[in-house]
């Protein structure tokens, strides 16, 4: 097997192990998502609500409770995946630096982190979509999943960026929670009657919300918004990985020509 590909497989596998062993995140995923959805389902009235779908420039008349379930799903994914990637990146940056000093290519580690992000986002968004499915059947399940997947990528890359930027664990968690709440709650006209305001289109969850609502309620999915929704994860990725690269780059050391390796006996005095 090619050495770089072998290293990529190992790094991806261990990055996934790292997330699997984040028991708090797994517990949040398994328990928090259904409870979160259930609470919204019983609290929010089953009443019509207007939602501005910008792809068609029309106000859709949708069920407020169903729309809120979509917002709840988006919100849950942002919190869980943001937390997972912030926690993992912050804890492993010194270890990653040691691996790089020992010869692991930076580019391979970066690629492995992004691959783990894609797998985790796919699984978490699928689970969240399935939980929501228990309460309500949206127009298109795959499109809702795809929108949830993109918001997973967005907050995963946001977590990655905070993981390389923020030193304190608590500061990072608070930032994720506050940004997520502000971002996702303002998109829902149930909580924010001015959800059709122009400035909201600059928020990270704006385009995924438009896409998810289009997929769940409208006949034509707004594919252009799927493309727009990649802008934030792309920006977070570029910024986060540039800082990761800067922090873990090898130092100013000149390596001179190689000489024969050392063969030390371990058993001489044992």
């Amino acid at each position, binding site marked *: 097997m090619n050495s770089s590909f072998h290293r990529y497989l190992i790094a991806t596998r261990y990055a996934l192990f790292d997330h699997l062993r984040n028991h708090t995140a797994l517990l949040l995923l398994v328990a928090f998502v259904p409870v979160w959805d259930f609470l919204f389902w019983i609290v929010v009235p089953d009443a019509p609500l207007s939602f501005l779908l910008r792809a068609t420039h029309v106000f859709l008349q949708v069920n407020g409770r169903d729309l809120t379930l979509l917002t709840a799903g988006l919100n849950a994914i942002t919190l869980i995946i943001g937390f997972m990637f912030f926690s993992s990146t912050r804890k492993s940056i010194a270890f990653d630096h040691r691996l790089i000093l020992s010869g692991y290519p930076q580019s391979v580690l970066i690629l492995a982190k992004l691959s783990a992000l894609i797998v985790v986002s796919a699984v978490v968004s699928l689970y969240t979509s399935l939980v929501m499915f228990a309460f309500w059947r949206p127009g298109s399940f795959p499109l809702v999943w795809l929108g949830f997947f993109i918001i997973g990528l967005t907050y995963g890359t946001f977590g990655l960026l905070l993981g390389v930027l923020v030193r304190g664990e608590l500061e990072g968690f608070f930032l994720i929670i506050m940004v997520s709440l502000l971002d996702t709650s303002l998109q829902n006209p149930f909580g924010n009657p001015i959800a059709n305001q122009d400035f909201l289109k600059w928020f990270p969850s704006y385009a995924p919300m438009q896409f998810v609502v289009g997929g769940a309620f409208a006949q034509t999915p707004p594919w252009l918004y799927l493309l727009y929704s990649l802008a934030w994860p792309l920006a977070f990725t570029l910024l986060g990985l540039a800082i990761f690269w800067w922090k873990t780059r090898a130092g100013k050391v000149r390596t001179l020509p190689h000489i024969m390796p050392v063969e030390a006996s*371990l058993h001489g005095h044992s």
Partner: protein
Amino acid sequence: MSEPLLQAQDLYKSFGHRKVLQGVNFSVQPGTLVGIVGENGAGKSTLLRILAGELRPDRGDVLRRGAMGYCPQKVILNETLTVNQHLAYFRAAYNIPDLQRADELVEQLGYQHYRKALVGQLSGGTQQKLNLTLALMHRPQLLLLDEPYQGFDWETYLRFWHLMTDLRSSGCAVLIISHLFFEQKQFDTLYHLQHGSMQLQAPIEPQIASLTGGKEQ
């Protein structure tokens, strides 16, 4: 005289207004055991991090030859991976064909029963053994160790010094940061890092028997 495996040339490093290194020059030859001592905060760990390539100096050069093993003072491991997974990860990093040397080190340092345990569940001493194994498992020609025995019991501590003298005999250059007075006789060359520069220090006659000749006999 053979070519040095490590050369530090006029290294300078400051953190804000605090000048830590102010023109450090020295070299390490193959088959030598070199120690660096100094007060707390003298800049020993900063110097080792620069030599390992973990930190950049403000000025000056580091020249290295051959494969390097680096054991940082703070244990740098991934708590969510097992011992075996760490060994596999670093095998891939060093691009070495097998784990024969790592297996020997695990046996030698006496933590073979923990190979499948998660690192986060290991004691500080066992984590330190793994920290050291990761620096040695690829048969480096140059070893940079920052107080690598913290948390070791006495038996492991003695094994550690046997291992270092074996490595020296086989031609490896070993650089160790030390703060213990009675260790200083172990070194061929001893430097004192003070006020940002290195001074060659005359070997100190220890008050107690040398480690390798003392307890085991």
